């Protein structure tokens, strides 16, 4: 009776959680943990809640005319999260409201979001993006290490997520490049570069600190007892 996607999800999580133990038992160091290898990003982390991504940028991103008009008219009632839809790869880190867990192995690094219990899979086995990617909520992510930094390249995103609560949006041409730089045991410097020629005239980047959290990933299901939608009203507050 189990749902196929749920079974797949559970399978992925179990495999990712088990992999470090298998490598430990085989006598080889767990991924990223060896002294000479890349830093260890395993753990539960959180970035400061950033509902308006223009704030760390210091100004509005370089909108195309199309995006500027869309942003001006945007109403937060249209936020995909209000409909309990997935949060998307970058917003899940900078505006997920809830912590996330990184599970790192040599070939795959996973980011497990507490928010809706969604996850990202970042392949670090040297593969390239597929030549023809069907857009999805979290896209296709590949990563490689540059010294102390995991560089993650993501394409194949659909246009249905927002970048933040303030209503900055994107198209399915969005290309993310993230740099997870391990600063010390409890800190990661996260820089995300947004490139989307339909919405932004040039790429732009923000950097936020990610800090280790003394907690575990908990449950969060948006649809469990959702009662708000019947009470929502358009705010008619135009963005600047």
């Amino acid at each position, binding site marked *: 009776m189990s749902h196929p996607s749920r079974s797949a999800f559970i399978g992925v999580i179990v495999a990712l959680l088990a992999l470090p133990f298998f490598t430990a038992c085989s006598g080889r160091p767990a991924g990223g943990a060896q002294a000479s290898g890349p830093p260890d990003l395993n753990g539960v982390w959180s970035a400061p809640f950033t509902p308006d991504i223009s704030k760390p940028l210091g100004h509005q991103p370089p909108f195309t005319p199309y995006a500027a008009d869309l942003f001006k008219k945007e109403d937060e009632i249209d936020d995909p999260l209000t409909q309990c839809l997935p949060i998307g790869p970058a917003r899940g880190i900078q505006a997920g409201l809830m912590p996330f867990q990184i599970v790192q192995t040599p070939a795959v690094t996973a980011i497990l979001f507490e928010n809706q219990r969604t996850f990202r899979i970042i392949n670090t086995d040297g593969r390239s993006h597929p030549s023809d990617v069907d857009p999805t909520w979290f896209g296709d992510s590949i990563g490689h290490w540059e010294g102390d930094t995991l560089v993650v390249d993501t394409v194949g995103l659909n246009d249905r997520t927002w970048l933040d609560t303030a209503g900055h949006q994107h198209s399915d041409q969005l290309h993310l490049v993230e740099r997870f730089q391990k600063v010390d045991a409890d800190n990661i410097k996260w820089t995300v570069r947004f490139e989307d020629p339909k919405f932004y005239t040039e790429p732009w980047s923000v950097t936020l600190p990610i800090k280790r959290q003394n907690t575990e990933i908990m449950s969060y299901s948006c649809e469990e*007892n*959702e009662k708000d939608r019947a*009470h929502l009203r358009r705010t008619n507050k135009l963005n600047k």
Partner: protein
Amino acid sequence: MRSTLFCALALASAFVFAAPVVAHHGFSVEFDETKPVTLTGVVTKMEFMNPHIYFYLDVKDANGKVVNWAFEGSPPNILSRQGWRKDTVKPGDMLTAKGFRARDGAHLVACTTITFQDGHQLTVGPGNIKAYDKN
């Protein structure tokens, strides 16, 4: 015993992962920051569930008529990190709850704090509206 529990909760609240939270929607689409409200009544039901906890109070209005109000708070994961448990608020408790009314006029409140009869206060949702709206 209750004092010990609430001291523990207050202490826990000072150290845990803190986040201003409305879990899946902005404040302004549902609630009115110009309509703060303080209501006292008896808890009739507690739903320690996602995406928001709800508890319900029977509140007497000025004419003595009892109205059942709904109070929305942060989700269980956030509140658990602040020391809450599913029975922190339970039917029969007498509470004073503060918050902001729903824009559509329903007997619904975005709850910020509750105060029990012994004076202990707990955070239920974000007190700073702008922290989770567009700022």
